[in-house]
């Protein structure tokens, strides 16, 4: 009893272990990952802070219900290999989730320890276990069931598709992933920058699936190179569609097509997938602005504004039409961006881009906004203030105000019901679409969301596909 008491006191004294990071001035100029990760000692110390709750709130807060106290206990005991196995039971991409999940509104947001002080650093620990395995692990593969003699096609290699692939390959299905780009990974590869998610890690996670037997076919634009119906003709028994959102939203204001106005998709794809940040070693060019303005304030906007700094911007500014309280990006991202020198202009929106005689953007005109009544999303609607025009000088504009549903696949596939915004209708409990033998999940169903929600949808679909191939539709 006494011993327990002292242990508790000791535990309460351990502060949340900070993650060492590159200094802001330094990192704003390079593409290397910002946080360095925990050492085994720090991880074990942080793991001690977990109370091992009987009814863990954190698990309920996790979209894929990872046994959080379970994997944390194993880290505390120094059983790192067992810990990663525990994670893999529910999450096939822990090195990625540990880095990009919004833990503050999920597991960590409801952690009991967080009620009084700072929550257990669940994300950092998840990342630690996955990194440790990658660097020191045995590389052993999890066990696989006997071959079932059935084939599943997965369209899109983002987190949704990769989760379905990982879940079904161990159940004994033959899996082929069809990816439109020349490399797999979806947004993990072409959207999220190197300094937040090293591409080496994405490649390793995919390599892990390939070692399990998943076939990845790149350069396959389903709907063009091959259609969904043809996949069935080719002998696939089920198809999962996880093609992401993938349609850029651009602003419809004068000057919108000037050179130097990129959609965030184009800017980030050039930099991340095509490695334009290493031009001319890589051949794809990218416009490197001095005065850069990013429109929007989600994660995509933060990634764009921070990329611009690394590509040599003197000023990297974010212009957002609502106020700081409405910023949709994760706090950690906003914090990192501010530390690195990104400036924020809240309550402002562009009305017009100004170009020079070569068709290049040189500035933009903005209006100040004030917040009015709440709109459909429950956020207060920004209303322009009359006569509040001001100009911003800029030679590069990145439009990061959201994404829509890319119609390429959905419009070339008969029998797939879409909602009014063009996203695929899928049963939230199974992922089934209105087309027989076809499932869908991730951003193409929900609209732009998160990695973990896409994975959760993949998990649900994988279970339903397994049921179908065992019992029928």
């Amino acid at each position, binding site marked *: 009893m006494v011993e327990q008491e002292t242990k508790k006191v000791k535990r309460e004294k351990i502060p949340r272990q900070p993650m060492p990071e590159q200094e802001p001035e330094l990192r704003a100029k390079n593409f290397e990952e910002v946080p360095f990760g925990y050492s085994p000692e720090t991880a074990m110390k942080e793991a001690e802070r977990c109370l091992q709750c009987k009814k863990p709130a954190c698990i309920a807060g996790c979209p894929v219900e990872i046994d959080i106290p379970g994997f944390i206990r194993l880290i505390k005991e120094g059983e790192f290999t067992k810990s990663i196995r525990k994670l893999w039971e529910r999450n096939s991409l822990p090195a990625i989730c540990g880095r990009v999940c919004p833990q503050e509104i999920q597991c960590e947001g409801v952690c009991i320890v967080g009620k009084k002080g700072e929550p257990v650093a669940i994300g950092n620990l998840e990342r630690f276990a996955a990194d440790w395995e990658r660097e020191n692990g045995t590389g052993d593969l999890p066990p696989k069931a006997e071959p079932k003699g059935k084939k599943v096609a997965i369209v899109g290699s983002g987190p949704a598709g990769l989760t379905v692939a990982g879940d079904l390959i161990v159940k004994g299905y033959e899996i082929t992933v069809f990816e439109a780009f020349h490399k797999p990974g979806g947004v993990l590869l072409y959207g999220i920058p190197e300094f937040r998610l090293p591409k080496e890690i994405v490649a390793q996670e995919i390599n892990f699936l390939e070692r399990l037997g998943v076939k990845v076919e790149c*350069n396959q*634009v389903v709907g*063009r190179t091959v259609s969904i119906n043809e996949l069935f003709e080719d002998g696939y028994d089920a198809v999962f569609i996880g093609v992401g959102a993938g349609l850029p939203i*651009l602003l419809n204001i004068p000057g919108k*097509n000037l050179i130097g106005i990129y959609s965030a998709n184009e800017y980030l*794809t050039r930099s991340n997938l095509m490695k334009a940040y290493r031009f001319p070693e890589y051949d794809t060019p990218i416009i490197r602005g001095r005065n850069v303005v990013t429109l929007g304030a989600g994660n995509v906007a933060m990634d764009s504004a921070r990329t611009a700094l690394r590509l040599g911007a003197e000023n990297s500014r974010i212009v957002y039409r609502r106020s700081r309280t409405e910023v949709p990006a994760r706090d950690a991202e906003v914090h990192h961006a501010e530390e690195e020198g990104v400036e924020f202009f809240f309550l402002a929106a562009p009305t017009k881009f100004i170009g020079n005689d*070569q*068709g290049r953007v040189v500035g933009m005109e903005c209006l100040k906004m004030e917040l009015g009544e709440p709109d459909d999303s429950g956020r207060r609607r920004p209303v322009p203030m009359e006569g509040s025009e001001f100009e911003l000088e800029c030679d590069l504009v990145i439009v990061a105000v959201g994404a829509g549903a890319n119609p*390429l696949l959905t419009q070339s596939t008969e029998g797939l019901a879409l909602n009014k915004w063009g996203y695929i209708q899928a049963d939230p409990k199974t992922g089934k679409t209105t087309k027989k033998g076809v499932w869908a999940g991730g951003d193409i169903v929900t609209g732009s969301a998160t990695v973990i929600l896409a994975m959760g949808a993949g998990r649900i679909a994988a279970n339903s596909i397994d049921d179908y191939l065992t019992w029928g539709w």
Partner: protein
Amino acid sequence: MFKIVKREEMSEGTVILNEIEAPLIARKAKPGQFVILKANETGERIPLTMAETDPEKGTITVIYMVVGKSTALFKTLMVGEGYQDIIGPLGKPTDVEKVGNVVCVGGGTGIAVLHPITRALKEIGNHVTSIIGARSKDLLILEDKMKAVSHELLITTDDGSYGRKGFVTDALKDVLDKGDTQLVVAIGPVPMMKFVSKLTQEYGVKTIVSLNPIMVDGTGMCGGCRVTVGDQTKFACVDGPEFDGHKVDYDELMLRLQAYCEHEQQCYNDFCMLNPQ
């Protein structure tokens, strides 16, 4: 790898033909569609409209002009070597319809793109007059092939070294003056398409052009290929590449094609230093 099975040099080595093994694409491709090619790991994604496809052999043919680093790199690829990545078929196929009298106008490597479209338009029962042009005789490509798929073939060169001296628009004007042309298809350098469209607009003849803006993904994901058509912004990779020639904002397209000219120059110079010839 997508292997090159045939390679030819044309136009004094400034234009290259590659026939490439790509069975899945060859099976699906229709006239007017394009592919995106990437030579190697560090390469750029370059869109090229297909000049020919052979579903039986499983090959596609592209013909490109050497204009910068990426095409200079493509030029170094020999038979037996190949491209790391080819994606396609992309874009909408040409609307091939029987309308009556059609004039197909081509310039530069646009002639390569025009060829399968011309053939399809003839096969469906149109009377096809083709007009192809180049700066001079040595730079003209695919004369025989175009002759074979047209009822009549007119040739112009800027310097008069072959065919009629002048621009394709001069020959086109004469054809249009005869009246009774239902459709013009114009594919070539942007200024050529611009002037052809200007001319046909005066005659009120429907005109289709094929645009070649800078692209990245080719699937409607980035918006880099956007062009203004009428009062709308269109993505050439999915809404095109063919558009109503009378509605395209050619001046904007020409500017946007210059977006990376400084980068191009740097890259190309470096490449030429390392790979003389």
